[in-house]
C-alpha cells in the first residue's frame, strides 16, 4: 500500500522531548531537590535535630513528596486537567499514539495499563522475592551473621512490605484493568487517566521503598508498629511514603473498578450474568475503597509523630501504641482479603472452562465473596488477642473470625461441584487453579488455629502464623496469579506460552512451595518467633531444609521468567483467538485485542458458563469472527 505523502520521522532528540517517562524522571529529580531545599529552609528547632550533620527528617519526606509530584507532572498527568480548565473538550488523545512507546508513559488504553501493571509488578515482586532468598541465606546458620542484624530486619521489612504493596494490586492491576471492560462489553474504563495514575504511583512507590537502603533501612517489618516506627532511622520514612502511595493507588483503583462495573455494563448484562471474576473484582474494590483511607490516615499520624513531634502513638506523652495497632489492623485485615478475593475470582473463572461445566452455585459463590468482604471488617482484633487491648471483646472476635470461614467455604463448594462429573483437562492454568484448593485449604485450616484465642497464645508471633499467611497469600493468591498469567497472556499478547515449560514450572513451584512452608508450621510450634535473626541450635536442620527448599522455589520462578521471555520475545508462536475453548466474551475477540475492543458493543443473553447447554456463547459482539478458530 503506497501513501501519497512521505512520512518524515522527527529526529530522536525531538521525539524524546515532551511529557513522557524520561521527562518524568528528570522532573522527579528536580522535585526531589526542591523538597530537600524547602525542608532545610524550614529551620524550626523542633524539626531540626541534627542540623549540623544534615540529618533533617523533614527533608527526606518533602524531597520524596515533591519528587513524586514532579515525576507525575513530567509524565503528563497534569496536562488534561489543565486543558479542561482552559476549556478544551474531553478527549482520550493519549490512546492514539501507537507503538511500544505507549507502554512507557501515560496511556489511557486500559489494555496497555494492564500490561504495564503486569511487567511493573513483576519486576518489583522479583526484587521482593530476591530479598526472601537473602533472608533465608541468613537463617542457614544461627550463629553466623551474613548481613548485620539491622540490615536483616530491613530485608525482612522490604520483603514483606514490597510483596504486600505490590500484590494488593496484583490481580486487579494487570487482569482487572485488561479484562473488566472486555468482560462487561465496554471500550474503556470509567476513568482512564486515573487508571494510569494508579500504575505510575505504584512504580514511584516501589522505587521509594528500595531506596530505604540508602537511609539505614527500617526495623519494624511490614506492620510498622509504633513506637518502634517513631524511634527508627530515616529509612522508615521511605516505608511510610511507600505505603501511603500504595494506599492512594489502591483507593483510586478500586473506585475506578466499581464505577466502571456499575455504570458501563453492556445491554443485557444483568448482575446475575456477570462473570464470577467481575464479582471478585467488585468485592475486592469495595474493600480497597473503604480500608485504604484508614491506612493513609494512620501513616500520616506516624509521619507527624516522627517529624513534627506530635504524640499520637507515644504512651508517655498521652498517646497510645494501641491506637496504631488498632488502626493498622482495621486496614490490615481487609487488606489480606483484598489479596485473597481476586484469587477466588480467578479460580472460579477458570474451573468451568477446563471442566467444561457451568459454574455450580453461581449465587452461592457471589454470596461467598460478598460475605467474606463484609465480614472482613469485623475481625481485625484477632491479630491482637494477646496484646492487652480489650480483653473482654475477644470472644466476639473469636466468633466473627470463625464465622468468616463459612463464606470462604462457599467458594470451595462451588469449585468442587463444578469439577464434579466434569470433563477435566489438565492444562497449565487448570493446574494452578486446582493447586489453589490444596494450598488455601491448608492456609484456611491453620487460620482456624490462629482464630482460636487459646491456640493463638501458642502460635501468635511465631513462624506458625508466618506459614499460615504464606499459604493463603502465596499459595492462594500467587498461584491464582500465575494461573491467570498462563490463561490470559495468549489473549493479551497474541502469543502462546510454552506448555511444557509451564508444567515444569508449576510442578517445581508447587512442590518446593510446600516443602518450604509446611515445615515452618513445625518451627512455629517448636518456639521460633518471627523476624528473628538467630534461633536455638536444635532448629537448625529445620531451618536449613526450609532455606534450601526456598532457593529451589526461587529457581522455579527463574524458570517462569525464562519461559515468559523465551515464548514472548523469541519463539513468538501465534496463539489462536480461543485456545482454551472458553465461552467467555474476551475469547470471542481476536488476539491481541484491538485498540477499540469491540467493533460494535455486544448484547448479552446469558452468563459465560453455558457449557453443556448448546454451542453458542452467551454474547456475541456483532461483526466479530463467528465461532472459534
Amino acid at each position: 500500500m503506497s501513501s501519497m505523502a512521505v512520512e518524515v520521522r522527527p529526529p530522536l532528540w525531538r521525539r524524546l522531548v515532551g511529557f513522557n517517562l524520561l521527562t518524568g524522571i528528570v522532573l522527579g529529580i528536580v522535585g526531589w531537590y526542591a523538597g530537600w531545599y524547602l525542608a532545610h529552609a524550614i529551620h524550626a528547632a523542633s524539626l531540626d535535630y541534627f542540623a549540623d550533620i544534615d540529618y533533617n527528617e523533614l527533608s527526606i519526606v518533602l524531597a520524596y513528596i515533591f519528587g513524586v509530584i514532579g515525576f507525575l507532572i513530567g509524565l503528563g498527568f497534569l496536562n488534561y486537567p489543565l486543558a479542561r480548565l482552559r476549556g478544551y473538550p474531553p478527549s482520550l488523545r493519549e490512546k492514539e499514539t501507537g507503538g511500544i512507546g505507549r507502554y512507557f508513559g501515560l496511556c489511557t488504553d486500559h489494555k496497555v495499563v494492564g500490561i504495564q501493571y503486569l511487567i511493573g509488578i513483576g519486576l518489583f515482586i522479583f526484587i521482593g522475592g530476591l530479598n526472601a532468598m537473602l533472608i533465608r541465606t541468613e537463617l542457614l546458620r544461627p550463629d553466623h551473621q551474613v548481613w548485620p542484624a539491622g540490615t536483616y530486619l530491613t530485608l525482612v521489612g522490604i520483603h514483606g512490605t514490597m510483596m504486600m504493596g505490590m500484590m494488593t494490586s496484583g490481580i486487579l492491576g494487570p487482569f482487572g484493568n485488561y479484562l473488566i471492560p472486555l468482560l462487561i462489553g465496554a471500550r474503556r474504563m470509567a476513568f482512564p487517566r486515573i487508571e494510569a495514575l494508579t500504575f505510575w504511583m505504584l512504580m514511584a512507590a516501589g522505587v521509594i521503598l528500595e531506596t530505604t537502603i540508602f537511609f539505614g533501612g527500617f526495623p519494624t517489618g511490614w506492620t510498622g508498629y509504633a513506637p518502634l516506627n517513631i524511634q527508627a532511622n530515616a529509612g522508615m520514612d521511605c516505608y511510610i511514603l511507600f505505603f501511603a502511595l500504595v494506599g492512594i493507588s489502591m483507593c483510586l483503583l478500586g473506585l475506578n473498578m466499581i464505577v466502571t462495573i456499575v455504570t458501563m455494563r453492556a445491554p443485557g448484562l444483568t448482575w446475575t450474568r456477570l462473570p464470577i471474576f467481575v464479582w471478585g473484582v467488585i468485592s475486592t474494590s469495595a474493600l480497597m475503597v473503604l480500608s485504604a483511607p484508614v491506612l493513609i490516615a494512620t501513616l500520616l499520624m506516624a509521619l507527624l509523630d516522627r517529624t513534627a513531634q506530635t504524640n499520637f502513638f507515644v504512651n508517655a506523652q498521652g498517646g497510645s501504641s494501641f491506637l496504631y495497632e488498632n488502626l493498622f489492623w482495621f486496614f490490615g485485615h481487609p487488606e489480606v482479603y483484598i489479596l485473597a478475593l481476586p484469587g477466588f475470582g480467578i479460580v472460579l473463572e477458570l474451573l468451568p472452562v477446563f471442566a467444561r461445566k457451568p459454574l455450580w452455585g453461581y449465587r452461592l459463590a457471589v454470596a461467598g465473596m460478598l460475605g467474606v468482604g463484609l465480614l472482613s471488617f469485623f475481625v481485625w482484633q484477632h491479630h491482637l488477642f494477646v496484646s492487652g487491648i480489650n480483653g473482654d471483646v475477644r470472644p466476639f472476635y473469636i466468633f466473627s473470625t470463625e464465622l468468616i470461614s463459612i463464606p470462604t467455604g462457599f467458594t470451595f463448594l462451588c469449585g468442587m461441584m463444578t469439577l464434579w462429573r466434569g470433563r477435566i483437562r489438565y492444562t497449565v492454568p487448570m493446574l494452578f487453579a486446582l493447586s489453589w484448593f490444596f494450598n488455601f485449604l491448608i492456609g484456611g485450616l491453620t487460620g482456624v488455629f490462629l482464630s482460636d484465642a487459646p491456640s493463638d497464645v501458642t502460635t501468635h508471633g511465631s513462624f506458625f502464623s508466618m506459614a499460615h499467611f504464606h499459604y493463603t497469600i502465596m499459595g492462594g493468591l500467587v498461584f491464582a496469579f500465575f494461573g491467570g498469567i498462563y490463561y490470559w497472556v495468549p489473549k493479551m499478547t497474541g502469543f502462546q506460552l510454552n506448555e511444557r515449560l509451564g508444567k515444569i514450572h508449576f510442578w517445581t513451584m508447587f512442590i518446593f512451595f510446600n516443602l518450604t512452608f509446611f515445615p515452618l508450621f513445625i518451627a512455629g510450634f517448636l518456639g521460633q518467633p518471627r523476624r528473628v535473626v538467630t534461633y536455638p541450635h536444635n532448629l537448625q536442620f529445620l531451618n536449613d531444609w526450609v532455606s534450601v527448599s526456598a532457593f529451589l522455589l526461587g529457581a522455579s520462578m527463574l524458570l517462569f521468567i525464562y519461559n515468559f521471555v523465551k515464548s514472548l520475545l523469541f519463539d513468538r508462536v501465534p496463539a489462536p483467538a480461543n485456545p482454551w475453548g472458553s465461552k467467555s466474551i474476551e475469547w470471542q475477540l481476536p488476539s491481541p485485542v484491538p485498540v477499540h475492543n469491540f467493533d460494535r458493543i455486544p448484547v448479552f443473553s446469558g452468563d459465560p458458563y453455558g457449557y453443556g447447554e448448546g454451542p453458542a456463547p452467551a454474547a456475541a459482539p456483532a461483526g466479530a469472527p463467528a465461532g472459534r478458530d
Partner: protein
Amino acid sequence: MLGVAVGVALAGVLIGFYVSKLTTDNGSAAYTVPVQTANGHPVVDLKIETVAAVGPQLSNNPDFVSYLIQNTKGQWKRETVWRLPANATVHVTIYNFDGASGLRNPYLARPLGIDGNVEMIDGKTANGVNPDDTSHTFAVPAFHLIVPIPGVADNAKNQCGYAPCSLSNAHHTITFTFHTGAKGHFRWQCFVPCAAGWLDGFGGPMQTIGYMDGFLDVV
C-alpha cells in the same frame, strides 16, 4: 537476543551491587583480640573507649556516640565484633569520655557477671553507680553481665569533642575482669539511652551494629 543478554547482565550487576551494599552497610568488621597465655590459660586484654561523637574520620554519622577498640598498633578502631578465645580470662579497660544520660531502668546500675561483682572506677572499687550518672553500660545479656559506666561531669574541663580522644581529655577509667565459657556468638549492647534525638534514646547508634552494639565471637 542482544537485548536479553544486556538485560540479564544489567540485572546481575544491580543484584551484585545490592547484595554487596547490604553485606557492608551498618555492620562491623571483626577484630581478633590478641591472646596471651598465663599458666596454660588464655588471657586477653581489651582496651575500649566510649566517645560522645565518633567524628567524620571513623564514620558517615560523625555525631553518633560509639565504642572504639584499640588495636595492637595503638590505633582506635570502630569495630564492635570481637573475637575472643573460649574459657579465657578477659581483662577490660574502658576509658569513658562521654557525659551522663541516665539509665531508664536503675536496676542495671550495678555490676554483675564479672569477677567479684565489683568494678574499679578511677582506681577505686565500686559495686554500683548512681543510675542518673551513668553514661553507658557494657552488657552481655547472655552471660547476665552488666557493667555501668559513669559519665564525665557536665562542667568538667577539656572535654573531648570528636574522636579519637586522648587521655588528657576529661575521662573516667573503668576496669573489670570476666571469663568466657563455651564457644558461641553472643551479643553485647549498651543499655543507657545515649542516642540523642531518637525516641526513648534508643534509636540511631543504639540500633546500629558498629557503634553501641556488637558481638563477642567466642571461638
